């Protein structure tokens, strides 16, 4: 058998195993909308941990972190910087979000805006922005799948057909299993990826340099600027680091799928304990940087930094090992994409389509529409991945600049009575316009600052100012509890006129 056959066969076997685990997890659970989206709100510490560990072991950290360490150097460290800090933020905001979620039976992020600000319009805007921001994130997963198959087939299978096949698989996986299946499949991918990361991270520097220490000494000797900021870039210095770390750590739980993942928890305390422990999960992350830094010296002429980890694995180990690493990566991309598709599709069906087009839809019909949306969203992301060539990290930063704009609405909504619907809406529009303008005109970073962070500052200022100028009308959940007109039922948040 040729090496590529061995590698590809092993990748397929791993993906199949993960899918089967996910598929069997649905048994013993009736699949209504609430079970499909939030797992019946019965997940304990372990399952929530697995869903929330989404960011730690994804295609992004796996291929993207090593890719940026290879192509940019020092600035890639921002990924390691924000990792523990996003959990610090979650410690304060997730338990109250969960509390509201339980009280009103929330399933999506837009549901939260619906009950807090009593505005279907604002909720629909949040849903649109959320779905649009998920597309670059989905794109990361599809591109990752494509890269893996391309490297594992030794270039014989082109990226495009690989991405198409991968996405057909993800679509099918989401449709049959729902969030519970995704959580169980996460176990398989976390174990595999943990193993792959530790082994590759220690073995690669050992093979080429005799250890991690000698590798860094050699790199420092050959390219002294690579290891500190701004590394191989001109404008990603310390200011960029601080603003990007802040944007990412504040924005992380504003991703619709991570926001919604908090609703799967059994209690607010589960979420808080999770927040305390989670940074430890990132302890293998530095190994990804190490592999990327090794590749700088070993493979100096790669066309695409995101290929560095896979290529170095292919050149250093037997084909079956490439298959193992590739399989772990492929399953990870699938699981992550599945979570995102689930969140995006539910947002669209529940908060956009039903309130605006068909208010009389039943939950069952919403579930069907959400499943159709899974396919549409997946094809949209597929289209963009075929026609775009951004690096994985750059894609993620674009998405963060968008979702982070929800932060003022969520946090002020939780802890302040004074914030108004008009204020949040004005802030959101300001933030998004500034982020979009700076990015489309190629001014990110703007004067050394992360464009999304600048937008977030303006967003906060606008939210505060407009809230101050407008009267507090629907004062959010506490009052909504007592007025029957605006009260969404326990089972479902129905649109209010």
């Amino acid at each position, binding site marked *: 058998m040729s090496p590529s056959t061995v590698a590809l066969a092993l990748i397929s076997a791993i993906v199949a195993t993960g899918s089967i685990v996910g598929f069997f997890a649905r048994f013993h659970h009736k699949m209504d909308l609430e079970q499909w989206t939030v797992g019946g709100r019965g997940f304990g510490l372990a399952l929530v941990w697995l869903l929330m560990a989404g960011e730690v072991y994804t295609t992004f950290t796996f291929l993207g972190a090593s890719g940026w360490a290879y192509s940019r150097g*020092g600035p890639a*460290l921002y990924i*390691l*910087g*924000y*990792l*523990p*800090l996003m*959990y*610090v933020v979650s*410690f*304060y905001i997730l338990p*109250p979000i969960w*509390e*509201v979620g339980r009280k009103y039976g929330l399933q999506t992020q837009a549901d939260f805006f619906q009950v807090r600000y009593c505005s279907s319009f604002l909720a629909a805007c949040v849903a649109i922005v959320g779905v649009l921001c998920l597309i670059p994130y989905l794109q990361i997963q599809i591109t990752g799948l494509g890269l893996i198959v391309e490297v594992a087939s030794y270039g014989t299978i082109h990226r495009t057909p690989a991405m198409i096949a991968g996405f057909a698989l993800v679509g099918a996986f989401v449709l049959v299993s729902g969030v519970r299946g995704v959580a169980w499949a996460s176990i398989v991918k976390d174990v595999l990826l943990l193993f792959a990361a530790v082994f590759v991270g220690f073995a690669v520097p050992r093979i080429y340099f005799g*250890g*991690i*220490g*000698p590798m*860094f*000494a050699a790199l*420092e000797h050959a390219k*002294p600027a690579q*290891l*500190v*900021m701004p590394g191989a870039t001109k404008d990603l210095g*310390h200011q960029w*680091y*601080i603003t990007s*770390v*802040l944007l990412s*750590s504040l924005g992380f739980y504003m991703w619709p799928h991570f926001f919604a993942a908090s609703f799967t928890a059994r209690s607010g305390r589960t979420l*808080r*304990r999770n*927040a*305390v*422990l*989670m*940074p*430890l999960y*990132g*302890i293998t992350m*530095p190994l990804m*940087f190490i592999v990327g830094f090794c590749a700088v010296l070993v493979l100096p002429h790669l066309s695409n930094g995101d290929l560095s980890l896979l290529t170095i694995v292919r050149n250093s180990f037997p084909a079956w090992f490439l298959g193992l690493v590739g399989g772990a990566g492929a399953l990870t991309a699938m699981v992550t994409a599945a979570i995102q598709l689930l969140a995006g599709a539910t947002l669209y069906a529940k908060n956009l389509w039903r309130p605006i087009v068909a208010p009389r839809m039943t939950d069952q019909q919403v579930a069907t529409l959400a499943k159709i949306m899974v396919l549409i969203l997946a094809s949209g992301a597929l289209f963009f991945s075929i026609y775009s060539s951004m690096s994985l990290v750059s894609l993620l930063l674009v998405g963060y600049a968008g979702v982070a704009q929800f932060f003022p609405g969520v946090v002020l909504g*939780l*802890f302040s009575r004074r914030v108004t619907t008009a204020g949040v809406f004005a802030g959101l529009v300001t933030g998004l316009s500034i982020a979009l303008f700076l990015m489309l005109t190629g001014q990110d970073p703007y004067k050394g600052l992360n464009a999304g962070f600048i937008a977030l500052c303006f967003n906060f200022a606008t939210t505060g100012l407009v809230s101050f100028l407008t009267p507090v009308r629907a004062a959010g959940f506490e009052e909504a509890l007592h007025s029957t007109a605006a009260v969404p039922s326990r089972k479902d948040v129905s649109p209010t006129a």
Partner: protein
Amino acid sequence: MKRPSLGSILLGLIPFAGACFSVTLWDRVYPMVFGLPFNLFWLIGWLPLTPLCMWAAYRLEVRRESNDIRAGGDAR
């Protein structure tokens, strides 16, 4: 919603100060620790230090909650 206590917010600011705002102080290669450049080593250090800070914040919040319950207040 009840706001988190000042003490627990201050504890949460420690990791932000250590891993984010102070970047100019530790973004350097030397002294290398365990063969790692200093900036990488520093950030790895915050992976176990952050849970330590947040564990303290957790204890603080739990104690506050049980005090609230005893006082017959809103048990959030």
